[in-house]
Every structure is written in structure tokens, then in C-alpha cells.
């Protein structure tokens, strides 16, 4: 394996339906283990480059894990700034899916012109709020947002409102699913992730010596779905869709679209309130353990660190894809038993896109009738 990892989904058919769904993953779930032996600032410096496509979420999860290990709680101003940075990254990730990946589901070309100016906003948001560069530094790192920079950022992000229009990809995709009678496709009985993760999260991570939990997490045998749908489950239009179609294609795609509008609204509110954080009182733990949680674009991201005399002894990362693409998770349950229609391959691709893995994903159908 020398390139980015991926997921291969294999559907086996029998008697006109999907009998089995196997997912082969080449994801490097234990790669963060090599952070051992480094100092906290080396870890928070390296992680955002290593996971450049979700670097903000990784950097902030790391900072929170180190803060938890020290028993330190971030002041509200710092938490607000982090919410802004995570919001910007989530917006860009959602827009990337909608403009680059969803058109292919409709047989259309991606809209690269609309997407191109968006990714630089992630870096711009970090510079805007933390001009001295310490956005991922445990304890803060010089939060000093100049109002003008934030206003520029919000103006650039406002372009995303166009994704709500009648002829934009999300609405057309939803209409297409409705026309095909596929709104309920991919519904699973997998419960949605509790806020803050499963109650045994920290204990299970601590006990996971061989990486089994990182590859196939569960909580007392139960697997959860995590992502936008989890975050917006109670939002009125999403709750109505779930009531009608279950945790299915319609609810998941709609949640992504609703979340864009919700984050834009939240960022405008936060921008009014953002202030310079008080001088930090954080002192890194010499020895201790802690976890850092982040709601990243694709769901719950968890970092756990064990520190010994200021050096990382153990480092673990649990990513949302391990829940959503678990061998007994929402993708597998959503496809098992599906009718072997001529467009099954497309349907499986659409469901994978709705659950949004953070790596490339292929679909293969074995045992064609």
C-alpha cells in the first residue's frame, strides 16, 4: 500500500437480492500509533499535514486530547473560534461532495469552477482567527480575530447559498431519488451515535491493545451511524424525512444540505461574538491520558493520547468511517436484502456517497443472476 487507502464494497447476490455485503478496507487505522515518542507540539504540528483533507478536525481533536490529558477546559472564546474553524472545513467538505461527487450520480460533470475557490478558505479561516499560526496549539495559541478578515470569510462562504436553489445539484438529486422511488433506499436499523460518543468510548480505546476496536468499533456489540444525519436528526424537516423513510438516502442527503444552511447561520452569529481569548493558563500535562472529540464533516472523530513526562506514549485516532462502513454498520445493513435491480451498482454507489467515506470507495457485484 503506497497510496491513499480505500474501501472495496462487494455485494453477493442470491435469489434476486443482495445476500451478503463485504467491505475490504485498506485504511491505516493504527498509523497514528507512530506519534509515540513525540512531544505534543510535534504531534499538533504534524497531524494537519498528514490528514490534510480534514486537517482542521484532526488538529482540534489533538489539541482537545492534550488539554483533556492536562485536565484543562478551553474558555468559551477558544471553543467559539474552534467551532468557526470546524464549520468552515465542514462547509468546504460538504460543498466538495455536492459539486465534485454528486453530479456523477446524476450522470453530470462536476462543477469545478464553483468548487475551486472554496478549499483555500480553510487555511484562510485559520489565519483569520489565529494570526500567529497556533490554531491547533493545545491551550489556544493566540486567538486574535480581526473583524475584517472574518467578514471577508463569511462573504466568500455565502456563495454556498446557491446550493439551495431549485436547479442546484442537491435538489435535483433529491427529485431524482423521489422519481425513482428510492427515498427509503438504504434505510438501516442502526442507531444514531449518541452526542459525545458511546459511553464506553474512552475505556474501549484504552483497552484496545491490538487495534481491533479502531478498525471495527462497537459499544456493547452495538454499531452506530455518525455524521450529518446524527447531528440534524431532530431538525424538523430531517425528523419528518426520517419518520417517512427511515435513516435512508433521502434523510442523509437532505441532512447534508440542511447542515450547510445551519452552519452558515451559526458562523454569522459567532462572528458577532468572537473576541480575543484571555491569556492562556494552559500548562501541558507531564503525565496523563485524555480524549479529544470533534464533530467533523463525516461524523465523530476521536483522538486519545497517553502522555508520560511530557512525551506521547500512545496515540490513537478513531475516525467516523470506521462506524459508517463497519462490517455490520449502516452501509452493510442498508444494502443487505436489497433487490438485485439492474441499477443496483448505481444504488450502492449512491448509498456510499450518502454515508460519505473519507477515502475512495469502489463497488463490485458478484454472482450476477
Amino acid at each position: 500500500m503506497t497510496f491513499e487507502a480505500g474501501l472495496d464494497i462487494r455485494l453477493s447476490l442470491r435469489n434476486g437480492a443482495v445476500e451478503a455485503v463485504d467491505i475490504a478496507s485498506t485504511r491505516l487505522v493504527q498509523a497514528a500509533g507512530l506519534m509515540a515518542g513525540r512531544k505534543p507540539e510535534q504531534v499538533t504540528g504534524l497531524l494537519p499535514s498528514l490528514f490534510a483533507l480534514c486537517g482542521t478536525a484532526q488538529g482540534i481533536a489533538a489539541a482537545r486530547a492534550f488539554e483533556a490529558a492536562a485536565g484543562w477546559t478551553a474558555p468559551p472564546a477558544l471553543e467559539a473560534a474552534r467551532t468557526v474553524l470546524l464549520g468552515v472545513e465542514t462547509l468546504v467538505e460538504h460543498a466538495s461532495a455536492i459539486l465534485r461527487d454528486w453530479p456523477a450520480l446524476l450522470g453530470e460533470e462536476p462543477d469545478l469552477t464553483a468548487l475551486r475557490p472554496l478549499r483555500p478558505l480553510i487555511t484562510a479561516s485559520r489565519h483569520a482567527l489565529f494570526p500567529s499560526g497556533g490554531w491547533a496549539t493545545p491551550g489556544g495559541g493566540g486567538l486574535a480575530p480581526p473583524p475584517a478578515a472574518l467578514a471577508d470569510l463569511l462573504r466568500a462562504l455565502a456563495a454556498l447559498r446557491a446550493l439551495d436553489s431549485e436547479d442546484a445539484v442537491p435538489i435535483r438529486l433529491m427529485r431524482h431519488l423521489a422519481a425513482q422511488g428510492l427515498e427509503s433506499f438504504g434505510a438501516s436499523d442502526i442507531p444514531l451515535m449518541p452526542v459525545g460518543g458511546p459511553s464506553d468510548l474512552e475505556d474501549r480505546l484504552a483497552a484496545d491493545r491490538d487495534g481491533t476496536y479502531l478498525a471495527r468499533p462497537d459499544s456493547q456489540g452495538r454499531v452506530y451511524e455518525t455524521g450529518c444525519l446524527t447531528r440534524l436528526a431532530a431538525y424538523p424537516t430531517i425528523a419528518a424525512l426520517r419518520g417517512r423513510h427511515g435513516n435512508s438516502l433521502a434523510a442523509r442527503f437532505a441532512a447534508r444540505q440542511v447542515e450547510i444552511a445551519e452552519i452558515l447561520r451559526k458562523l454569522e452569529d459567532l462572528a458577532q461574538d468572537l473576541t480575543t481569548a484571555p491569556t492562556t493558563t494552559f500548562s501541558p500535562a507531564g503525565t496523563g491520558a485524555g480524549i479529544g472529540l470533534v464533530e467533523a464533516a463525516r461524523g465523530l472523530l476521536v483522538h486519545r493520547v497517553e502522555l508520560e513526562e511530557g512525551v506521547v506514549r500512545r496515540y490513537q485516532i478513531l475516525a467516523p468511517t470506521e462506524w459508517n462502513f463497519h462490517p455490520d454498520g449502516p452501509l452493510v445493513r442498508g444494502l443487505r436484502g436489497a433487490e438485485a435491480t439492474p441499477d443496483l451498482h448505481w444504488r450502492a454507489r449512491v448509498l456510499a456517497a450518502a454515508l460519505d467515506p473519507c477515502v475512495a470507495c469502489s463497488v463490485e457485484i458478484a454472482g450476477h443472476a
Partner: protein
Amino acid sequence: MCMAIPSRITSIANGMATVEAFGRSRTTSLLLLADEVAVGDYVILGAGGNFAAEKVEPEQAAEALAYLADVLATGQA
């Protein structure tokens, strides 16, 4: 993990770049990049590899590649 592998551009033609990492080459579209890039620059690719997502500074690329080399060497893959 959705690790990003910084890949060095070895040639550019018609908006497509040939990039190399760990001795393997592939082609990727430069149409999504906001920055100008040239042969020798490092980029990371979006999921699936069809599009370069971001230009990466050489020091940052070197640091990430060193870590990834360790990951591969220790069989964490």
C-alpha cells in the same frame, strides 16, 4: 485513516499532472487547485485521486512523507 500523501509533480500537460510518491506515478487533474503549481511542487490528492486538492509546502511535505515512510516500514498499513 484518510491520510494525505504529498505527491511531487513530475510533468504537467493540459491541466493534468503526473505526480509521484513512494516510487509510483499517477495522473491527476489540476483543475481544482486554487494555487499555481509547477514541476517539483508537492500536492495532495482528494479521495480517489482524480483531482489534486491542495498545494503543500516542501517542508510540510517532507515531514508528512517521513512519517508515512515509517508507517509503511513498520507495517501499520
